[in-house]
């Protein structure tokens, strides 16, 4: 009888609850608060938060082989299925028109990857992180959640929770991070520089672009193929306008389903053992460095381009190269309008903004090629 009672009591989850579990619940509650009360990336932070919450109950078996969250994580994320499916949906929502109208903006998106490499080398320099971990921290500067998760799954799965939460949190802070850096690197005169009307690319150009971009990017960085191929096929669905059903599924139903699985899967990786350590603090600090350098890289390249080109660009649009589509472009537009109400930078900023997504996927592919 005593043994039975002992077994029953021992089987109660509450008997195995650790301070670490409770600490992780508090982190989950912070994520709930940010998502529900502050509107910070709710589509991701809410499922991630609940993933953290549920994964830190003792004795559930959710994370053991065959457990529900294990299945989400192992088959969805570790096997690199979900991030490319998210890219499919993103492609089906992305208008490459601004990039096609002004291909120079591709360079600005590439320049913003300065943040990725600055944070990578910075993280290595601290001595806290190995090369694989440093690459995952660097990619936070690309401000692209699925790419951060994709790279973490490849190089440092134990860092995925911290890296993805840092990436999504800082993306929400783009309106706070970009303005001071972009202002410090530009004069009011530069910020007030109006840009003319953008030409409207033809339908043919928009159809050719995803095919051409796939050829160039995947031939140069083959390991970026899972993300780039799905991004471009989604875009081709949309621009061809002959598979509306597929476009609709890619950017609505499928996107929503995989977002739930992604959020819960990523959140479930954030157990007390893997999250409550000094490396997590390092990830968050270096994440800010990554964003700051990404902003600076785009702005400085835009200024450099203006020294050598006839059709000058407002250097603010370089700041949109940090991705975080379309929030970074909106921030840039507001800064431009503040300097000169006749300045409409939104669509011009979408060029580097979209190019930044491509640039980050390429940077992730380059890391995998170089490190694995």
């Amino acid at each position, binding site marked *: 009888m005593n043994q039975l009672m002992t077994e029953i009591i021992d089987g109660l989850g509450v008997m195995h609850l650790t301070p670490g579990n409770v600490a992780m619940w508090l982190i989950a509650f912070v994520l709930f608060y940010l998502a529900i009360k502050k509107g910070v990336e709710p589509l991701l932070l809410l499922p991630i938060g609940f993933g953290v919450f549920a994964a830190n109950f003792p004795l559930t078996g959710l994370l053991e082989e065959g457990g529900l969250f294990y299945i989400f994580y192992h088959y969805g994320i570790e096997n690199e299925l979900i991030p490319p499916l998210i890219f499919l949906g993103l492609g089906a929502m992305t208008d490459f028109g601004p990039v096609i109208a002004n291909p120079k903006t591709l360079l600005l998106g590439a320049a913003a990857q300065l943040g990725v490499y600055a944070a990578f080398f910075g993280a290595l320099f601290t001595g806290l992180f190995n090369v694989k971990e440093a690459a995952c921290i660097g990619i936070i500067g690309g401000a692209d959640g699925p790419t951060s998760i994709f790279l973490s799954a490849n190089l440092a799965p134990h860092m995925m929770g911290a890296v993805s939460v840092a990436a999504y949190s800082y993306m929400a802070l783009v309106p706070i991070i970009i303005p001071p850096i972009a202002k410090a690197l530009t004069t009011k005169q530069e910020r007030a520089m109006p840009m003319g*009307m*953008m030409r*409207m690319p033809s339908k043919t150009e928009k159809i050719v672009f995803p095919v051409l971009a796939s050829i160039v990017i995947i031939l140069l960085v083959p390991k970026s193929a899972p993300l780039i191929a799905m991004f471009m096929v989604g875009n081709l669905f949309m621009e061809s306008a002959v598979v509306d059903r597929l476009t609709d599924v890619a950017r609505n139903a499928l996107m929503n389903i995989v977002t739930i699985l992604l959020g819960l899967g990523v959140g479930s990786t954030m157990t007390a053992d893997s999250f409550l350590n000094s490396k997590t603090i390092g990830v968050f600090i270096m994440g800010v460095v990554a964003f700051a350098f990404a902003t600076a890289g785009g702005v400085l390249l835009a200024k450099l381009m203006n020294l050598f080109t006839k059709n000058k660009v407002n250097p603010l649009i370089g700041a949109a190269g940090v991705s975080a589509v*379309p929030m970074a*472009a*909106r921030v840039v*537009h507001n800064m431009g*309008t503040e300097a000169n*109400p*006749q300045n*409409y930078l*939104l*669509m011009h900023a*979408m060029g580097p903004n979209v190019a930044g997504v491509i640039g980050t996927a390429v940077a992730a592919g380059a890391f995998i090629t170089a490190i694995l």
Partner: protein
Amino acid sequence: MTQVNAPMVGKVLSVDVKVGDQVKKNDVLVTLEAMKMQIKVYAPADGEVAEVNCNAGDVVSTDTVVVALK
């Protein structure tokens, strides 16, 4: 006559002037919604509103003259 085109493709949220209004440079003429953002279209110069060619709910593009000033 100064023609004011929509700066980008967007939906007209509100027309903030009417024919005959006197406006100063940088006064708001029309408010658009593009990329889930409110974009205010400002007067490029002082003048009188001669034409208003759009209504709330219209979708306009860069070749749409939304307002003309004289």
